[in-house]
């Protein structure tokens, strides 16, 4: 079969076409008003003069939606200086991203430390399952941001409150999935472990954990997706640092190119996180 007929190739081609179409629509929609402000055809002296007159031709402060050209130069500016730090309100996007990822990583890690052992207990003990079920059912549907005032009041630190919110939103899918995975480990594997006189710790790590790992990883993947959704909103609330704060800050600056850039970055990072968990999931999945 020729390469151009493969499904992947054709799908990729179609994706590129759709992207070009969207960019085309954008270009036409933002075109006429913005093109007057374009710096194209101006000498550097003219541009500088225009800037001095308060009519910066490359600026997104110009009225109307940013053009593709403005967007491109913003993207290029960010990508060529991802790590600059000019004080609290002007940091490179990579630094902001690192703050967000740090909070998500910390909150997610803490959630793992709580949810996976607790999920094991719930999965193995019908008593604990019944006793804890009402709590889980009530706490699970609460929007994580609803915890924010309580967190701010008790923790008294906005950054840690952000981590707490990530923790509280990641914990439930992991907990529920771990408990389900552990409870549905096949009886026959446990019987094998019993007849081999395998101790409880060895059984937990060598039989139950690998047997439940695909389900646990599914829970972790869902948790990570939710955490990445929530971090943006949480950072908009608590402010200071992070990609969510960056979005809010640039909105206050009325810099739509920066906002759009941040939106795309959030999407791409979210996708990469999901892909990473998909790979992990693939690594622990077994065929019966």
């Amino acid at each position, binding site marked *: 079969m020729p390469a151009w007929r493969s499904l992947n190739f054709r799908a990729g081609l179609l994706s590129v076409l759709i992207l070009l179409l969207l960019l085309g629509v954008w270009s036409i929609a933002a075109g006429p008003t913005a093109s007057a402000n374009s710096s194209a055809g101006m000498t550097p002296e003219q541009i500088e003069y225009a800037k001095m007159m308060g009519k910066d031709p490359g600026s997104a402060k110009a009225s109307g939606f940013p053009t593709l050209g403005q967007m491109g130069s913003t993207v290029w500016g960010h990508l060529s200086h991802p790590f600059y730090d000019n004080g609290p309100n002007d940091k490179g996007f990579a630094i902001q991203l690192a703050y967000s990822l740090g909070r998500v990583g910390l909150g997610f890690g803490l959630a793992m430390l709580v949810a996976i052992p607790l999920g094991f207990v719930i999965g193995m003990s019908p008593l604990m399952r019944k006793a804890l079920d009402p709590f889980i059912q009530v706490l699970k549907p609460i929007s994580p941001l609803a915890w924010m005032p309580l967190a701010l009041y008790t923790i008294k630190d906005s950054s840690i409150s952000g981590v707490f919110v990530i923790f509280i939103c990641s914990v439930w899918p992991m907990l529920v999935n771990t408990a389900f995975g552990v409870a549905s480990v096949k009886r026959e594997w446990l019987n094998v472990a*019993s007849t081999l*006189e395998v101790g409880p710790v060895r059984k937990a790590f060598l039989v139950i954990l690998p047997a439940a790992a695909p389900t646990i990883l599914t829970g972790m993947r869902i948790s990570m997706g939710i955490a990445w959704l929530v971090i943006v909103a949480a950072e908009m609330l608590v402010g200071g640092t992070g990609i969510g704060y960056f979005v809010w800050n640039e909105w206050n600056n009325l810099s739509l190119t920066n906002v759009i850039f941040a939106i795309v970055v959030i999407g791409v990072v979210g996708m990469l996180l999901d892909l990473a968990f998909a790979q992990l999931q693939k690594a622990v999945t077994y065929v019966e």
Partner: protein
Amino acid sequence: MEGFLTIEGLGKTYVPGKPVFADVSFTLERGEFVCIIGHSGCGKTTILNVLAGLDSASSGYVFMENRQVSGPSLERGVVFQSHALMPWLTVRQNIAFAVVSRWPDWPRAQVQAHVEKFVAMVGLSAAIDQKPSQLSGGMKQRVGIARAFAIQPKMLLLDEPFGALDALTRGSIQDELLGIVRETQQSVFMITHDVDEAILLADRILLMRNSSETGAGYLPGGIAEVLTNPLPRQRARASLHRLEGYYALRNHIVDFLVTRAKAH
């Protein structure tokens, strides 16, 4: 107390007053191969699980070498009907898991050598690093048998190990099992549905009847008859039906299963 394995007055009750089986008593000598045969629901698997220590009886006792059986033990290897291999481990790792459980202090090399020996015994050396999902049903069951033998238990419990296999595969594994059992002098207790399988493998055959409601009242299930296999011990599947006494034995068992094992 006599015998290597002694079962005394074993019974299992789910519905009060109506035990599934009651008063099951038999002994098993060292190196003996005993098959139990009966219809579904008569309690064969429950008896085996009690012997394995995976289930508890409502009444009665099990003694092995004069010590009461009260839980699972490495002294009794079990081959499960559904092979029960861990699908995330290769054949090698599956058996090594059992070997390490049996001898936790063994160095790695010794474990590996032991594993390879038992995989070779069931003729699966070529597939040793494959996952169970890559193996056929017969191969999986062979791995299950190798795993049970690898821990060198004092006795082996087989829960209808060939039930899910096609007739050809079943035959060749039966031959293999018989060879290994004769060689290792293993004591075996096995459940089967297959009359020919029982005649080929067993030194003694326990015939079990289901519980039933008779005119005289409720009759719990139990062992109706114990047959000693009269055929010479050196027998093979291919020539089994030519041995003298084969048909008499076979007809007796089939008659029992058809007319007496189950209330109609």
